[in-house]
């Protein structure tokens, strides 16, 4: 199992899920991780180490969906089963199978919900974007651009954020996906425009940081925050009203399915199949909110808490 980083709880959960499943099936699992989000080289090294030590299959959440492909091809040629988790490769068929969520779609759900929630005010909303990193890793961009799409902002180049001209955007700031970063980013954007009333956060820790920043200047009420991930902490934040809505994803399920697939492949040589109609196996995304909006599919908090991870 090769994850993007070990510092993001999302991947930590994924690792734990995989370990639990591996133990159940009696499979030997080795894990690797990059040093930072976007660290392609560590992942290349990890794949090579797997090949050298005679692994049967690789589960990977690619840091760079395109740059990892040549190495993956080598691994597949060497007879390893390669499964992409969470993030699709580019092209998707470079892996034997992908168990993933559609990050763009998760963003779209957030955006649509926020648009409906603000209703008439959506026209002149003041939005803060709390993104992942200046290097613009794929996930961050997909989620961000999905949100804009859902909210009805012209996203220009879908592969990068920051090129939009919509006046409703107060600004982008980077958080590193952590509370501290979220807080600092929010403070900065607030200093720029104190009238922000909608916050898009790359993940729930960033959202939590944003909430802290808002609270410390007495603006906790009246600002809507949306996030993506669906960790139990995050869902509870939705419950408490800190986060308006979060798009929930399922790292544990991805990991479990992935380990199973490798197990099956090692036993029988059978490769897993994709969700009909898609080129990957969609583990799904659900919007969780206390305040469902019409036309935006969502599940209640209670259901979310059952499905949540971490």
């Amino acid at each position, binding site marked *: 199992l090769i994850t993007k980083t070990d510092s993001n709880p999302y991947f930590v959960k994924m690792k734990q899920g995989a370990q639990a499943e591996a133990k159940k099936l009696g499979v030997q699992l080795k894990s690797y991780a990059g040093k930072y989000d976007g660290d392609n080289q560590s992942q290349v090294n990890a794949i090579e180490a797997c090949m050298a030590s005679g692994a049967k299959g690789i589960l990977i959440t690619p840091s760079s969906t395109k740059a990892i492909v040549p190495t993956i091809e080598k691994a597949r040629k060497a007879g390893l089963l390669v499964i992409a988790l969470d993030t699709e490769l580019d092209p998707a068929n470079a892996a034997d199978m992908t168990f993933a969520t559609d990050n763009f779609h998760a963003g779209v759900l957030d955006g649509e919900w926020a648009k409906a929630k603000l209703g008439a005010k959506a026209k002149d909303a003041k939005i803060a974007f709390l993104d992942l990193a*200046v290097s613009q890793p794929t996930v961050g961009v997909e989620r961000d651009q999905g949100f804009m799409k859902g909210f009805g902002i012209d996203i220009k180049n879908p592969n990068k954020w920051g090129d939009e001209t919509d006046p409703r955007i107060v600004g982008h700031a980077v958080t590193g996906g952590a*509370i501290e970063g979220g807080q600092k980013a929010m403070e900065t954007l607030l200093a720029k425009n104190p009238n922000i009333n909608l916050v898009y956060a790359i993940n729930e820790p960033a959202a939590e940081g944003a909430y802290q920043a808002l609270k410390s200047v007495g603006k906790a009420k009246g600002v809507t925050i949306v996030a993506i991930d669906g960790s139990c902490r995050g869902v509870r934040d939705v419950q408490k009203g800190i986060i308006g809505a979060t798009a929930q994803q399922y790292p544990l399920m991805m990991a479990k399915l992935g380990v199973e697939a490798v197990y099956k492949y090692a036993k029988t040589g059978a490769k897993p199949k994709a969700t009909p109609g898609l080129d990957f196996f969609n583990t799904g995304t659900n919007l969780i909110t206390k305040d469902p909006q019409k036309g935006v599919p969502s599940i209640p908090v209670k259901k979310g808490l059952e499905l949540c991870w971490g």
Partner: protein
Amino acid sequence: MVQSPHEAQRLERDAQRLEQPVAASAAQVAEFDQDRSLRHRVQHRLHMTPSLVPLFVVVASIAGFGLLVGPGFFSAFALTLILKQVAVTGIVGAAEALVILTAGIELSVGAIMVICSVIMGQFVFAYGLPAPVAVLGGLGIGALIGFINGTLVARAKLPPFIVTLGMWQIVLAANYLYSGNQTIGSDQIDARAPLLNFFGGQIQIGGAILTYGALTMIALVLLLAYVLRHTAWGRHVYAVGDDPDAAELAGVKVGRVLVSVYTLAGLICALAGWVLIGRVGAISPNSGQFENINAITATVIGGISLFGGRGSILGMMFGALIVGVFTLGLNMYGTDPQWTYLLIGLLIILAVAVDQWIRKVSA
């Protein structure tokens, strides 16, 4: 640079009440040089008090951004926000500055900070210890890690860069392993151990919001400035950084000074970890991985030589503020984050270039 000796003295006083808007004094920049003896006096002052130079850059950049961003930047809110944002970096930077003064470098500062905040949290929430014990435990472990660094540097004579590079990785990894990557939220902290959140408190004066964290940074830096200038230990720190062989021959216990400096640095980092809890309102093992780079940047911009023995810790604080001012200013001006990143890179170089230039003309 500055207009009169009184001005110069005032700038120095400002160092001690930076919290107040310093905008006024910045407007009259770049007009001096009528009276030669006056100029000489100013130059002499700059020469004797090297931290005035980064202070000048701080003031100038605040003025600059004021013009650029508009009066919003001069608001007490924005100016105190800068202080708030640099508090953690400033404290970690103080630890870094101490080590750099001994011609060392400390790459594990951020890691020590994070693990100490996590330890404080775990002591309370995993082991159920009372909050004061947890805080003491965190501080103690910070000092212990520093002590190990110091011992390896001073006794085993390993290069500080390597010791702390290794320690950085060790501590970060230990942190993830130990914390299990769990975040402890503000509600939990408020409910069970409000002491951990102590530094989140703040004093409000008009629009100015001074967090205890920011005040702690200022107090710590002033205290260290006093210690470095006015105690034997402080002089020894400079002597060790300047030329350790000469210091040893002249009767300084170089090893002991080094160990004490690294231990103190570890302790200060642990304090930074506590402040971090208050700052973030939560305990998250994901912070501060690269705080070492921020701390070194602040130290070097502040005019402390990486070769040791030269510079003032006040300068470090102004260095941190320079970065803080640029970051906030550029963001408020609305530059794209990538451009901000680029411009900060440029301005780091520029700030030091201005510093060097002032030193030259005032030499």
